[in-house]
């Protein structure tokens, strides 16, 4: 009896160990597949052109060619594109947050009339894909003289951000107890000081998720940048990379260096705020 029981226990242990090995094998295989292309990209960015062709993608660079980065930055105009992307991203984040917060505040806390209608309007911005506005925006921006300016990059993206933000923030506003707001009104706070003194500190977690969401969306945006500006001095990274690719096809390490440059800020932000990024993605997705 006891022997038999021992046998089944040990068989169960073996099975369990085997399944754990299989589990880790799958996970590690996927980690390797995910990371390897990125590592070889970095390796390529530090090689000489001929070296890459001769030694292949996996070889370590003989002596790291850091000047590829310097070259991409200055001669390849990556510095300009990078600065543009920073300007546009900061502007969209600042404007988007300010306007989305005030809209959500008006709709939820200030009890304005037709709340469902306003919410419905903002929902349109969430369900419509970005591509729907690009061609008309090209002509509209030309008409009002904003084509080929920073505004052409900033305003359409801000509009998208407002729609998402006004929607995303509503539950956070609803969570704030009405008594708290009533108290602050009785204490003589107006609408503005209620928002700034009472609500904003409480909304800070939701707002920081939103900032990261806007940052990543704007930093990586391709569509607006590909059609609503044409001047090289106004290009932002994702689209600039594409034209860069066509101009320097022969110099693979330079393209690799530029690609790395284009990703660094987003990746750094991501590594610091992983949990918030994921929170934004999960709630954002389930809301749609």
């Amino acid at each position, binding site marked *: 009896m006891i022997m038999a029981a021992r046998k089944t226990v040990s068989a169960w242990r073996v099975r369990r160990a085997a399944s754990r090995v299989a589990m880790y094998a799958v996970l590690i295989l996927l980690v390797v597949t995910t990371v390897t292309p990125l590592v070889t990209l970095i390796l390529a960015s530090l090689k000489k052109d001929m070296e890459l062709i001769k030694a*292949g993608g996996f070889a370590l660079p003989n002596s790291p060619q850091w000047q590829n980065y310097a070259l991409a930055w200055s001669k390849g105009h990556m510095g300009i594109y990078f600065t543009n992307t920073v300007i546009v991203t900061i502007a969209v984040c600042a404007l988007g947050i300010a*306007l989305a917060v005030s809209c959500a505040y008006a709709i939820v806390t200030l009890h304005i*009339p037709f709340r469902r209608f306003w919410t419905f309007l903002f929902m349109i911005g969430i369900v419509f894909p970005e591509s729907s506005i690009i*061609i008309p925006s090209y002509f509209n921006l030309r008409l009002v003289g904003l084509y080929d300016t920073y505004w052409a990059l900033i305003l359409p993206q801000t509009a998208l951000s407002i729609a998402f933000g006004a929607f995303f923030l509503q539950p956070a506003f609803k969570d704030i107890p009405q008594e708290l707001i009533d108290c602050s009104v009785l204490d003589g706070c107006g609408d503005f000081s209620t928002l700034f003194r009472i609500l904003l500190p409480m909304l800070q977690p939701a707002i920081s998720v939103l900032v990261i969401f806007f940052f*990543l969306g704007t930093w990586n945006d391709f569509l607006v940048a590909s059609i609503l500006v044409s001047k090289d001095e106004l290009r932002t990274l994702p689209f600039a*990379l594409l034209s860069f690719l066509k101009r320097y096809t022969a110099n693979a390490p330079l393209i690799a260096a530029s690609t790395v440059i284009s*990703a660094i800020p987003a990746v750094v932000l991501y590594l610091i705020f992983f949990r918030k990024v*994921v929170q934004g993605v999960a709630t954002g997705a389930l809301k749609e």
Partner: protein
Amino acid sequence: MVRKTPVAMAWTMALFLLPGLAVYAAFFLIPAVQGFLYSLYDWEGYRMGAFIGLENYRKMASDEVLKGSIVNILYFMVVYATLPVALGLACAEILSRGRVRGSLAIRIVYYLPQIFNLTAVGILFRWVLHPDYGILNTVVDWFGLGGLRRPWLGDPSTAIHAVAAMTVWFMFGYVMVIFFAGMQRIPASLYEAAMLDGAGPVRQFRSITLPSLRNEFTVILILMLINALNTYPMIAAATEGGPGYATMVPALYGFRVFSYQSNVGYGSAIIDTLVVATLVFSMGVYVLREREA
């Protein structure tokens, strides 16, 4: 609650709602409506021509390039809705239930591709799949399969599958993150009860995890279809729709018709068809939700 007079309320709306609403209307709502109007005009170059009704849409039926690109996008939609979903679900289950060491680090890695801009992803895969120094060919050599060496993106017979593989690499972490978040909401007591009843991990997955994630499932499937329609910049960077039109997709083609051929009417018609498809899928979420509720 303190009631406001109508005048005070009008001021409140003007101060708090109007600025955001104005920017949103001017740069999103209005262009979104205009797009549909543009597709109804004969419009090449800078001047809007005559109103031609649905002529641009009729033209789509006889456009061979467009037809090929629709076949491609249907294939991509099938890929998006299956492979990353299966992989993402499996990873989420292992990571949330398997007591894995370094679970957080692994999740960070899986989601990492999503942080790269789509052009960078396309360029990255030009590397990986490059005929001379691409690492895929190197790996193929390691396994002694040198006969399989090829320019994966340059060969018309493999290009479309290579692009599909790229999308799996890019998307599965996204699926994983959403399923993982859903799994965190399933009460642990359900699993404990199942364990006492002698249910193994597979049985638990089938009887507890899957039914609890029904909501996430519909949303994921629809998001994958929407993403399939809209992640074309990746293809633009990896293959530019080529070789020939082997990896062309409607969105890329529509914007080409607009910016290279300056055909505003026809380009708008192609893009609007995609917009409508996206809307239909989005509506699907609500319909399914309502039915479940």
